[in-house]
């Protein structure tokens, strides 16, 4: 018995020595003893594909494709009467009017259909500003800073690394950006400007307008005209 138990103890020590314990880090792809249908040969989001030359599962849309909807409601999307909100209210998506000039004010209509078939009017309320704040702090504050004064972490880091971004990040509290029409701010978010890359792929049209609204709030917080400044603030101002 003692011989067998010694043998068993040696086996245990050998197995632990070879396999280690739970939580051991490894660069090896995990082993699947019974992989059942864990890996199915189907196309997946951002999947790898050996059939296509670019190695991607995702296929780019054919040039000139026009989006008609999300595909969640195919009967609706493919009916002859179907109109996409974006096609009825293009300036909400582009930030420009029919003549191609930047919208001076926020768009009048949103992209939401009322039950009557009309588009709902677009209004800036606290909900829109909250959305704008959330998105601004994720995507914009990195460079432009929490107060839109151009002192984001990018500026701090490029000062340390000696990179050019320190000269190129815009201070949005300057007069030139305060004078931008709403549509032009929207267009910069959508398409980028100079060294700023476009953020249209990260923000939906509603979110872009919300960011424009929040940026205006930030600008007002620093340069509030006397006629709209509350008396309590005026009293404490130097």
């Amino acid at each position, binding site marked *: *018995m003692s011989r067998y138990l010694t043998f068993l103890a040696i086996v245990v020590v050998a197995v632990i020595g070879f396999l280690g314990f739970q939580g051991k880090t*490894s660069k090896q792809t995990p082993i699947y*003893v019974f992989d059942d249908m864990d890996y199915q040969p189907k196309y997946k989001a951002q999947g790898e594909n050996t059939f296509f030359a670019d190695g991607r599962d995702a296929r780019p849309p054919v040039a000139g494709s026009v989006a008609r909807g999300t595909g969640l409601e195919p009967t609706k999307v493919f009916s002859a009467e179907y109109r996409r909100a974006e096609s009825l209210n293009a300036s909400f998506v582009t930030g420009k009017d029919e003549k191609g000039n930047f919208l001076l004010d926020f768009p009048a209509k949103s992209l939401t259909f009322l039950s009557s078939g009309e588009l709902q009017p677009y209004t800036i309320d606290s909900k829109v500003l909250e959305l704008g704040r959330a998105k601004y702090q994720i995507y914009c504050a990195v460079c432009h800073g929490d107060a839109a004064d151009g002192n984001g972490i990018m500026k701090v*880091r490029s000062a340390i690394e000696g*990179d050019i971004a320190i000269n190129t990040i815009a201070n949005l509290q300057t007069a030139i950006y305060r004078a931008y029409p709403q549509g032009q701010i929207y267009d910069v978010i959508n398409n980028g400007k100079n*060294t700023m890359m476009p953020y249209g792929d990260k923000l939906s049209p509603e979110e872009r307008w919300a960011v424009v609204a929040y940026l205006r709030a930030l600008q007002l917080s620093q340069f509030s005209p006397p006629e709209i400044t509350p008396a309590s603030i005026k009293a404490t101002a130097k």
Partner: protein
Amino acid sequence: MRKLLEFLNRPSTRGNFFRRSINNLPFQILVCLLATGAVVVAAINEYATNKYLNVGYTPDQPVAFDHSFHAGPDSVLGLDCRYCHNFVDRSSHSNVPTSNTCWNCHSQVKSDSPALALIRRSVETGEAVRWVKVHKAPDYVYFNHAVHINRGVSCVECHGRVDQQVVVGQQKSLNMSFCLDCHRNPEKYLRPLDKVTDLSWKAESPEAQAAQGTKFVHDWKVNPPQSCSGCHR
């Protein structure tokens, strides 16, 4: 035990063909079988589940992106998770960022770094960067990132403290009982929506978590499926 051995070794009234110690044999066989059984059970428990097979999987990535430097409020840059994984709150799939996302900043900062060679090539030619997927659910599991993120399930619950990892590795088992722990008791895990990407956030106490979790379950009508078809569609 001694009495048992004495009983087994009691003087025989008949002629002895075997050594007396042979009387211990059934006992010895039993001990060896039990010891072997215990070792086998312990080995299966330790090695045959995701906790051993998958946890700790830390592959090398084509570009050595350091999450602990870039991501999370406590990091150097303090980027939100969603700056790069920007579809996580509106898609079932949480995307690996496009190379353009890297280039938003790196066109200006350290753009000539050799560490970014693959990203630079990808931006110039459109060639994909072959990131290695770390957290894998089996293909018969339909996990939707957006519904979890938008209902107060933090990234940290499944991915662990990615904001502290230099190289991303799997920290949680992600097996089915792991999913069900939360689906059966969501109030233990739900958090305020603005803290979802704050991986270091914790409620002040388990009681505070239970109280606010119960409120969130009620207010947001959280009803996680526990039936098979909830996830295996």
